[in-house]
């Protein structure tokens, strides 16, 4: 039970400190109070351009809180959050430009059901558009070419642009939500358990797409319920009771580290850790 707290986080920041670019996301000693225990307790991490990082931990470990801090939804009580080296902007206009570079894939997708696919894709541009274009888009969906291009990038037929979102299948909806993310052109991609409610085939498909999209200068931070899906990630971060347990390249992650992370947690989590364990011993590189 106690190992989770005592094990020292192994922090390995590989490449991009040398490049001189500020990290896409940096958290320094972040505290978020909770009702009894802190939801995040002295958490620090860096996310460099091009990095694909998985966030692991049992239920209630603070994964969602961390992601809410990372996308600016939640301001920490203590500590600093830096996006590309900049703290949260003071002025509303600059703040919006900052937010526009943070893209979140929500578990419930948060598509606007009453609008067409194209209007939904364009909703990601609202931060950059003024009122006239925002209103016109509701009358006559704008920028068809750019929208068609993101759909094609995700292997979707541009014919879908005119369709209402309600007419899409589950898999199509996932991809449209991803397309909207692309249309936003963020540098930081965040996803909170995007695979949780998906069937295995769809989950794998979506994960591969997300990993593929996280090319420099973009970086991906994704919380994951299933350690067995760590394959394509560069780094894994283990969280437990709001604290960092490990932060290391996936290749060096060992099975016992995972088992420690999930020890005493929900049986389902433990099962997942055990299932992943043999692979973990050999590293996850496909």
């Amino acid at each position: 039970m106690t190992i989770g707290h005592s094990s020292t986080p192994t922090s390995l920041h590989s490449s991009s400190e040398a490049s001189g670019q500020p990290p896409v996301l940096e958290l320094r000693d972040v505290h978020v109070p909770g009702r009894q225990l802190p939801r995040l307790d002295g958490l620090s991490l860096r996310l460099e351009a091009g990095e694909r990082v998985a966030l692991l931990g049992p239920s209630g470990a603070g994964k969602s809180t961390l992601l809410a801090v990372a996308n600016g939804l939640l301001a920490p009580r203590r500590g600093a959050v830096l996006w590309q080296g900049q703290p949260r902007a003071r002025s509303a206009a600059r703040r919006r430009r900052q937010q526009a570079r943070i893209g979140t894939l929500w578990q419930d997708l948060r598509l606007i059901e009453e609008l067409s696919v194209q209007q939904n894709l364009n909703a990601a541009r609202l931060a950059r558009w003024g009122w006239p274009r925002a209103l016109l888009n509701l009358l006559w969906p704008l920028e068809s070419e750019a929208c068609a291009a993101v759909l094609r990038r995700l292997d979707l037929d541009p014919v879908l642009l005119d369709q209402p979102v309600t007419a899409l299948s589950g898999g199509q909806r996932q991809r449209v939500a991803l397309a909207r993310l692309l249309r936003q052109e963020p540098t930081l991609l965040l996803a909170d358990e995007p695979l949780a409610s998906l069937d295995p085939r769809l989950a794998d498909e979506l994960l591969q797409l997300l990993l593929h999209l996280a090319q420099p200068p973009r970086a991906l931070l994704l919380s994951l319920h299933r350690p067995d899906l760590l394959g394509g990630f560069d780094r894994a971060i283990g969280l437990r009771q709001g604290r960092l347990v490990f932060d290391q390249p996936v290749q060096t992650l060992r099975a016992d580290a995972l088992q420690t992370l999930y020890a005493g947690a929900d049986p389902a989590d433990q099962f997942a850790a055990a299932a992943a364990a043999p692979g973990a011993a050999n590293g996850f590189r496909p």
Partner: protein
Amino acid sequence: MTAHASIQPAPPLLVLLPALVVLPVLLALPLLLHGGGWDLIGQFAWAALTPCLDPLVLRSLLNGLGVTVGMALLGWALSLVLGLSLGLLSSRLLWRTLAGSALPAELIRRLLALPRSIHELIWGLLLLQLIGQQPAVAVVAIAIPFGALVARVLSDLLDALPTDGLDALRAAGAPAPAALLTALGPPLLPGLISYGGYRLECALRSATLLGVFGLGGLGNELLLTQQSLQFHELWSGLWLLLAVMLSLEGGIGMLRRRWSMPRRFGLAGDGGKGRCGAAGRRGREILLVLTVLLPVLLLVARGLAVDPAALLHWQPLPPVAPQGWAMALALPWAALVGSTVGLTLLAAGLAVGGAPLLLLLLAPWRWGRLLLQLLWAFGRLWPPPLTALLLLFVLQPGVITAALALGFHNLGILGRLLLEGSEATGPAREQALLCSGTGPRLALLYGRFSGLARSYLAYGAYRADVILRETVVVGLVAGSGLGSQLRESLSAFAWDQLALLLAVYALLTLVGEDLSDRGRQRLLGAA
């Protein structure tokens, strides 16, 4: 290569379309100003912060408030009794189950359209002519149209219930009345209680309004203080009324939530499922409240000295004015009907479109929402004729002035509904947009109004129908439409004109009701 469908406004845009009437109104306003009266408006505004606290004035206002609340309560209770019995009588399902034919239900429905289509103010003024000034007039005036409305809602609710349970009980040999009560009572009650609560709010507004036209209570005092420019006293009355109205609305809302009753017109984007989805709870409490209500009503009736017997003493009508039917037919009918319809459309546009527009404009500020809530509360409690009189300080009488007054009142009702609805839709999509850097206004427009649009506009269509009925209220003051002509004919004892005017007015509201029903069905059907 990406073929476009034709131009079609998306839901969030639809919500803003009615607000387009703001443009012509704003353009016309400078022409309507008659130059004077701004000092009065200034005094009026200042008086809001410095209401009169003289005990004598307050006692008189409180007396008036008591009478208004009493009239509202009694009128409401009587309308429920009337509405329940008439509603059962006009239910197709009931007649089919008990008598084998739905024909009588159809007949009663048609007949009930008449009392429903005529505004309580007209009923009040007619009764005033017939039986003279007495407290029972306002009570009956409220009960007649409200009862017919409750009857319609009840029979619609009844006939829309699934009948599987009823069929099963009947097949098992249960006698018809017992089967009806068992199968339809429980699913019916929540919707009915919820609607009843809403009607009480309406009754308070109506009782205040009737007071303005001399039927007693606070409305009368408000009118007198406004006409004598005693704004400080006027504001004492308004603040008192606001307190009563907000506590009534709050109390009804609390009971509704506590008893898990459905919202009256849930805009939660659940496509109206809330109405039957929520089941009633705490039956004992409900029963207790109903039991307590009866002696309270009796006490109120005694306090107001309501004498049912006096209703039967009709005064002899003054003789018909000698001009006769030719004169009645010579009225400028086209202009009268035209201005009434124009007034309705303008006021409806201002109210339906104004609420989302104001919400969008003030979205970035936290206090903006509070400010709007206060503004809308005043809109609801303030009888439109008083607003019209206030506007007449600076504007010339006419359709636009009347529409502003009527629009402001209905804006209060629609605004509250929109705000409740937008809070009930949940923040998820708006939050997602905010997180991607969208500004607060566009996030509200895209994130919240998308889901609300259809049900809000459907309610707006219903409201437009109510506004058509209410035109008579401001027409009497601001000199436009059928309302003002009605008043003239009434005071000239031209009964033939009056009968014709009422017939036209009733016809107009019935057509309006039909149109608004169709509009609503189209909006909800497309969702």
